[in-house]
């Protein structure tokens, strides 16, 4: 993807470019600035007119107050558990399917691959009610199971496609040599293909982490009690003060955003290349 960059030559052109880029950056970051500033305002000061751009005094204790309004430690634990288990299942089973699609010539492969791609266009809302009933009959409704179990079955067409595309770019010689030496498919997959596929695995891992950490709809449909709530859902049931104590909601929202940003910055390289790889679907 990277190539020799030739920078814009003229000084006026460069100034113009930076002005535009800065404008976009301000628009991108302004709402987040507003989020953090609101979370630090004194009680009741959300509703001062005109709104203060910089709070007259800073109140980090808002974070403690907000955190104690609901069992947020429990919600956090639930979110971590679901995110971890769902991502683990996705990485394992999506990479297996991707390996089969990329490397093993089996009967019906193209049909299955086309079906896999078509699932990316299937509206999730169309299967929502039967999935709810399925989990209910399995006795899994109102537990954390529905939030991660489905992701141990391939993880989703998009992830399979992404990893498969990546494996297709790898040279096949090393794997063939291993097969000649008598290695089984499983061994080749584990020992040769997977280590080389790390960038795609990392990209899928980051996507999956962010998706499950942020996911609101599945916990809304598949859980009910307070004990099974995740952070995303907990934020919604903040209390009757939902729309009156914005500074507390903004405090919890900020805390929820922190891990996402940490992962995003740490794995930024993989993230961007992953999205770029997905764009190749149109080529």
């Amino acid at each position, binding site marked *: 993807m990277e190539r020799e960059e030739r920078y814009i030559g003229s000084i006026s052109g460069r100034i113009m470019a930076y002005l535009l880029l800065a404008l976009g950056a301000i628009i991108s970051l302004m709402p987040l600035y507003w989020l953090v500033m609101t979370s630090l305002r004194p009680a009741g000061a959300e509703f001062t*007119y005109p709104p203060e751009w910089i709070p007259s005094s800073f109140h980090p204790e808002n974070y403690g107050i907000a955190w104690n309004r609901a069992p947020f430690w429990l919600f956090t634990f639930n979110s971590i558990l679901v995110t971890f288990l769902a991502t683990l299942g996705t990485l394992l089973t999506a990479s297996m399917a991707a390996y089969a699609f990329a490397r093993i010539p089996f009967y019906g492969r193209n049909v299955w691959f086309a079906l896999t791609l078509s699932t990316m266009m299937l509206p999730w*809302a169309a299967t929502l009610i039967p999935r709810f009933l399925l989990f209910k009959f399995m006795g899994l409704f109102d537990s954390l199971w529905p939030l991660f179990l489905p992701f141990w079955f391939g993880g989703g067409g998009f992830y399979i496609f992404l990893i498969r595309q990546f494996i297709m770019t790898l040279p096949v010689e090393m794997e063939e040599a291993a097969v000649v030496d008598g290695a089984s498919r499983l061994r080749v997959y584990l020992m040769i293909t997977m280590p080389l596929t790390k960038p795609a695995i990392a990209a899928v891992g980051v996507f999956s982490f962010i998706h499950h950490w942020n996911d609101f709809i599945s916990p809304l449909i598949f859980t009910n009690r307070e004990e099974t709530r995740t952070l995303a859902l907990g934020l919604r049931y903040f209390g009757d003060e939902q729309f009156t104590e914005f500074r507390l909601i903004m405090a919890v*929202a900020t805390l929820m955003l922190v891990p*996402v940003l940490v992962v995003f910055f740490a794995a930024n390289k993989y993230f961007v290349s992953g999205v770029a790889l997905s764009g190749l679907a149109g080529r």
Partner: protein
Amino acid sequence: MADAVPLGVSSPVPTKIPRWSRKVKADNIAGYLFLAPWVIGFLAFIVGPMLASGYLSLTKYSGFGAVKWVGFQNYDKIFQDDLFYESLYNTTYYAFLGVPIQLLVALCLAVLLNMKVRYVNVFRTVYYIPTVTPAVANVFLWVWIFNFDFGLINSLLRVVGISPVNWLWDPQIVKPALILMSLWSVGQQMVIFLAALQGVSEELLEAASIDGATNFRRFMRITIPLISPVIFLNLLIGIITLFQTFTVALIATNGGPINSSLFYVLYIYRKGFQSFEMGFASGLAWILFIIIMVITALQFYFARNWVYYESGAPS
């Protein structure tokens, strides 16, 4: 594929039949073992539910007790239901206006991020941050930003002397306001466009410059056709996504004011999970499925007129 030759002609060496078939058998077993989790998941969580949904739409079922067969009654009721038409209108309005605007903004941002200046990578990261913000946090934040008296946007408008707007509580304005809000997180489309822009051949653009084409003309005549497959992809995914807008309507407006942001999936949710009319809701879900399939098929059909593939037809 024009130069492809039948296998039998190109390989005069006789194949050892038994060995060959053993390998084919082993490959088939290995292939399906690796694919097994996905196949099971596909049947259990996609095919099964789709069929079940079709069956349920022909029944009366509350989620508890007995399932009662009612034939096409649910569909009759749906087609006489004002809220069905209203939610379909809202959703179509939102998707058909929202997607083009989103793509235009995403493309402009991608062009910006494709400029050849130092530190552009930093901006690429910053521009993507809104997209990783959790949807719930995002919605609460924007409810607050749109607040009439104390919100960020109205206070900015007051500074420049424009009278404040009742963003979320005016039936005429709520849908455009939600589209405006969605523009803050178009990072996904933006990055896909950016990757496509980076693949546009420099030589072609330079040749056009030498021939005297202006920047705008080069963009319209060379860049756009070359990235049209990716525009098409973003268009497809965008329509499918926006037709299923849910979270924002549930939390920010709960469908209001006076149902002007009652989107289709929110209506399915209300029918299925709040008034427990699972049969009716399944009928709604199937209609949504068909609508999305028809729109997608039409887009593929019309794509032939404007999507340009460098190497012939898409694979």
